[in-house]
């Protein structure tokens, strides 16, 4: 079985500062794969190289057996890769509904997810339809970012640190929602610093360190081996 999304020896840099040194990983259909690692190890950059926001300086990105390395971000999105950025980046002066409508029209990928069905998934957004994005709470913004990406009906969801900066109760609610998406068969690549969120969802884990893959294996194995976890993620 070939992977749905595959990175082969991807290198990337911002100007002169190199961030990724040969990342290889794969995400299979229906899997939830987690990139674990502390701040600044290259999780966000890995996702940006997939989206074409930071094109790789070397290596390849494959999606559904096609080479998408160096594609413009909008082509990557229209091919079926959805990106939920870490800093959320809601269109702050557009209403909740307008944020969703813009995303739907941008992606041009009709399917199961519509504005109505994402509001069914996140009912709280239904009551905020006309509220400006900038006036939402952190948790509401996070739900809107995920909903906004979903209306593009992606085949793979890149979810960058969804729990960051949210209160524990909100994180729990979010975890349940992402779990629902996974149960529906959506393929997810998740980046996280915290192990609670990631190990609860992930099938497989890649631990990144200084722009390389330090460890890869099943989430269950990592969960069972406390000593290994401590060694990999020790501050």
């Amino acid at each position, binding site marked *: 079985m070939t992977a749905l999304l595959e990175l082969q020896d991807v290198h990337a840099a911002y100007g002169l500062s190199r961030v990724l040194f040969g990342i290889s990983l794969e995400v299979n259909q229906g899997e939830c794969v987690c990139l674990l690692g502390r701040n600044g190890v290259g999780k966000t950059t890995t996702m940006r190289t997939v989206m074409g926001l930071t094109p790789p300086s070397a290596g390849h990105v494959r999606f559904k057996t096609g080479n998408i390395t160096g594609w413009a*971000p909008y082509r990557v999105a229209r091919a079926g890769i959805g990106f939920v950025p870490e800093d959320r*980046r809601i269109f702050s002066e*557009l209403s909740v509904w307008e944020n969703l409508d813009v995303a739907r029209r941008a992606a041009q990928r009709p399917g199961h997810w519509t504005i109505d069905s994402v509001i069914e998934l996140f009912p709280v957004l239904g009551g905020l339809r006309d509220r400006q994005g900038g006036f939402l709470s952190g948790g509401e913004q996070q739900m809107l970012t995920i909903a906004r990406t979903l209306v593009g009906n992606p085949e793979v969801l890149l979810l960058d640190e969804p729990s960051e900066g949210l209160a524990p109760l909100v994180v729990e609610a979010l975890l349940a929602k992402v779990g629902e998406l996974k149960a529906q068969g959506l393929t997810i690549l998740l980046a996280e610093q915290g192990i609670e969120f990631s190990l609860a969802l992930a099938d497989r884990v890649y631990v990144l360190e200084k722009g390389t893959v330090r460890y890869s294996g099943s989430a269950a194995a990592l969960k069972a081996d406390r000593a290994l976890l401590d060694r990999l993620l020790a501050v």
Partner: protein
Amino acid sequence: MTDLSFLFTQFLGGLTTAMFLFLIASGLSLVFGVMRVLNFAHGSFYMLGAYLAWQAVQWLTPLLESFWLAALFAALVVAVLGGLVERLLLRHMYGKEELYQLLLTYALVLILGDAAKAIWGTQQLSVSRPPILDGAIEMFGTVLPLYNLFIMLAGVAIAVIGWLILARSSAGRLVRAAALDREMLGALGANVGALYTGMFMASSFLAGLSGALVTPIQSIVPGMDVEVIVEAFIVVVIGGLGSFWGTFWGSLIYGQVLSFGILIMPSFSLFSVFALMAVILIVRPWGLFGKPMR
């Protein structure tokens, strides 16, 4: 009573100037608001619109006399030219220092100005009013040429249509999203490059159309490009760069201040608007309706 009707005449004159400037400045403001490009060549597109309209009238005259067809032709040609400028030149300046954009668009001012002189010479050209708008109406003892009335209505129409498109249409939502976060919009699947080209073409179309529409009331001369870009800049600075309604109110204020400022200081006609701009820049550097830069 004569006094009142005189003031009303000045008011209408100011209103005509205002709506005219709005037609020009709206495109300038739109491009800045969304693309963060300050397009000095906007006035040159306006000038080309005027010359092209004159040219089209000359070509059409033996067959049919249609000022409107000529104006449409001029606006469309300028829109295509704007599209080419964005695609071939401006595109390479995004994400670089703003100085490069300024230099590029200023270079276009020089090139297009000289090109116009080379093609159409330096003599004054003029276009006659379309016959249907040749008359005048009387309002409260003031004679208002129909053509001026048409310009006012056109300004209001563009304001309303422009606002409806921006606020209510899906294209307008995409444009506003692009202004807020271009990269994110691209990552959601929108072809922002094409959106920018379209925006720039729309802005150029408005510039070309205004240039064509000015020909029945102003003669076409070299230098009209620079004159109008200065006025348009004052308008958008007063209203707030990038703010749609700011540009509208900026135009209205500019028109009235100019119109009544002449009464107070006849020999310094532009002084009053420059003074107004200076005061606004000191009190609210981001303009009446603008927002402080992030």
